[in-house]
Structure formats: C-alpha cells, structure tokens
C-alpha cells in the first residue's frame, strides 16, 4: 500500500512527461496546417494568379486593395449574419427540439432521426433541394402559391431574402447537431435536481430557467462554438442556391475567396482574404467561447 502511494506520487511529480501525449497531435497540426498556412500567407504578399510559375512580391498591396474593395464590406456582413444568425437560430430551435424530445414520448425516436437526417445528406444536394423549393420557375413554394391563386415569388432575387433563405437552409441542415448536444446535456442532468426544485414549488418555466439552463451551459458553449465555426464555412449551400448572387449580395468570405482564387485568378488577393477570414474566425470563435464560458456553472 505504501509502495503504491509513493509510486503514484512519483508519477504525478513527473508531471511534464504527460505533455508527451499531445506531441502526435501537435506534429500533425504543424505539418498539415501550420506550415501550409504560413506559405499561404506568403502568397498574400504577391500577385500570384494561382498556377503560373511567374509572380512578384507586392508587399501589402493586396491588403490595401482589400480595404478599399466595396465587395468586402458586403461579404463581411453576410459572413457575420451566416455565422451568428445560424448559430442563434440553430441553438434556439435545437434546444426547443431537445426539450420536446426529452419528454420520452414514443414518437421521440422517429422525430429525432428525422431532424438529424439532413446532416447525413451532403450539403450540396440539400442546397439543390432548397433551390428546387424556392426557385421561381416550378419551385415547390410557388406551386403551393399557385394552388391558392397567388403570383409566384422569387426570394433569391431579393438581396436580403436571399441571405435569409441561406440562413434557413443551413439551419435546417444542422439544427440536429445542436439538438443532439442538448439532448445529451439534458440527459446527464441529475433528475434529483429537477425533483428538488419541483418539491420547492418551482413551476416548469422556473425550473427551466433556474435549474436546466445553467446546468446546460457547457453544452451551450460547445454548440455555440461549433455552430459559429460552421456558419463561417458555409459554402455549398450558397453555391447551390444563389452562386453568391445577385452579384455579391449573398456571398460569404468563403465563396468570394473561392471565386477570386479560381475564377478571377487572383490568388494573391484571395490569400489576403484568407488571412482576414482567419482573423475573423479567431475573434468570433474566442468571443463566443469566452461569452458562454463565463456563464457556465461549474458544479
């Protein structure tokens, strides 16, 4: 017995050895992300077109260009709407669904699977399905409107509505993620807390706000951060629905970077936008993380 205590103490004193465990991860990340990223940043200081072996160093020209490009502002706003808007919608709906499904009705299993299914389907195909729902000519929505004698609508032609449709499509596809995270969070809340609160006379709503929500805080943090990062990366849905249009009205940083790199053959500028994307993602991600962490109740 004494021997094992001594061994255990000795082991925890050699604390630094434990750090070796993250070495494989660090090596992989440096090799496949760190090093290429540094080279990618280097491109932003050139006028490279993406494929030719000739290009020259232009210093900060691409960044200056970025600051004076009117498209960048539109695209930035869109990207933030996609990230934050989707996150809010997905989390509110996801929580709502999780609360409903936690009631353990027999139908819960079926509905849970149905809500989760879109995640399994590729988001490009889902995007196309949404296009077939909202398109002007023969879209599912317009068919329903026609059945009621109404004129057809074209939401994708309106700059604001197009963004909204994309947020909806993305929410629909990924609300299952938030739902599953909240379900697992809900189911690890000890029932005794809920019973104690009920005994103390708290109604259902009160129980939710004072007991459930604070205990769900870790799930909220994880879900929020995941959704924000996901929202920043929306790509296929935008391509399938609007191609980023009309013009650039519904483009995100991801789609415009792609267009600039491959379409307009402006790899240097695209790289500068890539650095911008990284900074925004870092700021947004960190802010979200800090915001929700502060609200977590550590048991």
């Amino acid at each position, binding site marked *: 017995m004494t021997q094992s205590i001594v061994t255990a103490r000795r082991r925890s004193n050699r604390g630094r050895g434990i750090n070796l465990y993250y070495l494989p991860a660090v090596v992989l990340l440096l090799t496949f992300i760190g090093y290429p990223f540094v080279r990618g940043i280097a491109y932003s200081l050139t006028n490279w077109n*993406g494929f030719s072996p000739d290009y020259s160093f232009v210093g900060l020209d691409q960044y200056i260009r970025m600051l004076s490009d009117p498209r960048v502002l539109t695209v930035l706003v869109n990207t933030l709407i996609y990230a934050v808007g989707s996150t809010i919608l997905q989390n509110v709906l996801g929580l709502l669904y999780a609360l409903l499904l936690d009631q353990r009705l027999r139908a819960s299993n079926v509905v849970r699977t149905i809500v989760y299914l879109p995640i399994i389907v590729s988001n490009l195909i889902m995007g196309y399905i949404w296009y077939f729902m909202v*398109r*002007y*000519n023969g879209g599912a929505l317009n068919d329903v409107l026609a059945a009621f004698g109404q004129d057809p609508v*074209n939401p994708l032609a309106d700059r604001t509505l197009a963004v909204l449709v994309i947020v909806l499509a993305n929410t629909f596809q990924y609300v299952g993620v938030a739902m599953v995270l909240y379900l697992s969070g809900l189911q690890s809340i000890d029932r005794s807390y809920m019973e104690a609160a009920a005994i103390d006379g708290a109604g259902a709503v009160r129980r939710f706000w004072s007991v459930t929500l604070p205990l769900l805080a870790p799930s909220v943090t994880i879900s929020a951060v995941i959704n924000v990062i996901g929202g920043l990366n929306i790509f296929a849905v935008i391509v399938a629905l609007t191609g980023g*249009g*009309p*013009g650039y009205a519904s483009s995100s940083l991801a789609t415009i970077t792609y267009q600039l790199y*491959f379409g307009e*053959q402006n790899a240097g500028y695209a790289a500068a936008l890539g650095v911008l994307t990284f900074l925004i993602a870092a700021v947004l991600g960190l802010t979200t993380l800090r915001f929700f962490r502060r609200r977590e109740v550590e048991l």
Partner: protein
Amino acid sequence: MFRKSALLGAAAVITVPLALTACSTDGNDSGGKETITVYSTASEDAAVQRYNDVIAAFEAANPDIRVEVTYPGADYENLLKTQMAANDLPDVFQTHGWTQARYQPYLLDLRGAPWEGDVSPEILPLVTGDNGELLALPISQNKAGINVNIDILADYGIDVPATWDGFVAAAEEITEKSGGEITPIHIAGGDSWPIGSFYNWLAIPALISAPDNDGAALKDGSFDWSHWNFVSQQLKDLQDKGLVNPDIVTAKYVDSAQLMSEGKVAFTFYGQGVVSEVERLNPDIHLQMMPIPSVHPGDTPTWSGGEGDTLAIWKDTEHVDAAKKFVDFVAQPENVKAIIGDTPILSGLTTVTIDSGDAYTTTDDSIRVLPAFDREYFPSGMWDVMCANGQELLAGGLSVEQVTEATKAEYERLRASS
C-alpha cells in the same frame, strides 16, 4: 468495463486491416505495364462512352500501355490549376480552349507528329506556341451559334433573323403570338457563366466582325471602351422589354434545360453543349444553331469558333513515348470521328470531315467562323469579370457605364500582370 474494451477491440479489428489495405494502394500497375494518366473534360454519358471506347481500342492495340482516364467534370479547371501550381500534371490532358493563354508553359512540343501537316489552317494559330511549337492535337474546333427551337419559329412563321434588330423583333413577335406562354430568350443568370456567353457572342458582331472593327485595338490596349456599352445595353434592353425570363438574375442552367425540353423557350446562348442535354430530357425537341446576327449595317452573320476538344502532353511527363503514342492514335481519322460522334462541331484535322446533319440552320459555308471572343481579344481572367458585372447589371446594382468602367479596370490589371 466490458463494453468499453469491446468497443476498442472492435475498432482495432475494423481499422487495422482497413488501414493496411489503405496503405497498400498502388499508383502504378504492376505486371510490366506502363501507365499514363489522361484527364478529359467529357461529362455527358455518351461523350464519356466514346472516349472510353477509343481508349479501349488503344489499349488493345498497345498491350504494354495502360491508360488511367479521369473525368473530373465541373471541377476540371480547378483541379488542373492546382496541379499546375504543384507542377504535377497528368501525362495527357485536354486544354479546353486555353492552350496558348494558360497551359502553354507546361506543354510538350509536338512538332514531328505524323498528323502535324493535317492540322486545319483555321485552328493552327490557336495551337501554335509563341516560338512556333505545336502545342496540342486539335481534335475538334467550334462552330457555334445561338440555339434556336426551330419548330417554334416555324409555328409562328418567323424566319431566322440575320441582323440583331431582326433578332429582337423576332423575340417580340414570339411573345405576342404565344400570348406570353413562350419565353423568347432564356438566360440562366443565376449560374453566372451564361451571361458571359451572351457577352462573348454579341461582342463578335458588335466589335469584331465588321470590316472596320476593334480587334486590333483590343489586342494592343487602345480600345475605345465606350463601344462596350452597346453590349451591356442590349442585355439590359432585353430584360426591360420582358424578352428574357423574369427570373434572369436567379435562374440556373438546369432551369433553362428544363424549359427548353418543354418547348417553352425559343432562343438561348449556350452553343452545342446544351443540345445533348435537351435531347436527353425530351428527344422530340428540335434544336438548331443559327449564326450570330450582325449588328453594323453592311455586315454579315458569323459563327463563334475557337478550340473544341484538344489533347496536349505535359512537358515534364515521365512517359513521353507512351503519351505520344496515345495522342497519335487518337489523331487517326476514324478515332477523331469516334470521339466527336454526333456533336455539332467541326473537326480540327483536314483528314476528317464531319457531317453535322441538321445541327445548323444553314449549310452556307461562306459564313465566317471567328475566334471565341474572350480567348482571342481579352487577357486571361476576364471571363469572370464579364459574368459578375453582367449579373450586377441585371440585378440593378450597376449601370451600363459602371459595368464598362469595372470591366476596363480589370482588363488593364490583367493585361499588366500577364
């Protein structure tokens, strides 16, 4: 405790052998065969089949060579650009119209090939390098015009228009006589590239085909950009007069094809690519291509030409002889014919004549075939500029003059950097 180790055990049992299988993926075939990689832009069923048949015939005739063919479809260009950046191109690949402007530094000089003297004189300049190299095998060259549903014109007694004003008038007549049932012109602005197509084709009669034209000015940078307003203005007018689909800003190519197959569209600007697609959806629709109507008085209609299918060899390939054998095999007349099939297009070799049947509204050979506008007269990279600005024009975001300004700015940037 039992379940967790079972899970780990199961995971190991599944993963380890799979990973080992994964590790043993072999790039090159064993068995003494040389493998060459071929990339093709073909995507439609029949086109892919035609290529596969020719490749099978080649492998049968050359048992020591294996061909690994890839059809990337929509991502072809992006893939190749990435591979160029890493200097790791396929042994043989199609240059889809960019032989000189983009791929030239990476191509093997093919002078001395058995088919060298058979290259059709119209297309020879397009596959010749800056120093006289022969850059690619031109299997086919384009002869494209505006798609027209010839039955609709016949039903309303309208002749194929020869001038642009006549074209607009024909569109107005169709709207009137069909009571709005038929959309005269369908452009899928939502997909962006159809707008570029419109600009590309109208630019030919507007700027290039008349005796006194802007061709030279575009190439040496002295172009008077006020002439560009005309093309944008025509597009805007079509929209304002209701002669194009009301959802022109958001419609996708899949919508165009759908409506064309239902006989609800008279004219489109897609060239020969759309013919096989509409045929697949509805074999009863009768599509032909009409020459691009003229704009300036005294001018005549034209076709839009340029490279069709072209095959080139990567200059750093490790399989020079096998690659050359393949290209030479494809260059044989019966193989050129086999690859072209029934696509409405011209052959790039004088040894092959293609009978296009009734793919065109006229068989008049005197109608000139002029080069594809943006490839010949614009620096590389202008295509997306035309598309994006045209989209903004249609969405009401830019005026005609602003489109010209933006296009001119990019033209100058791209000219300076190329």
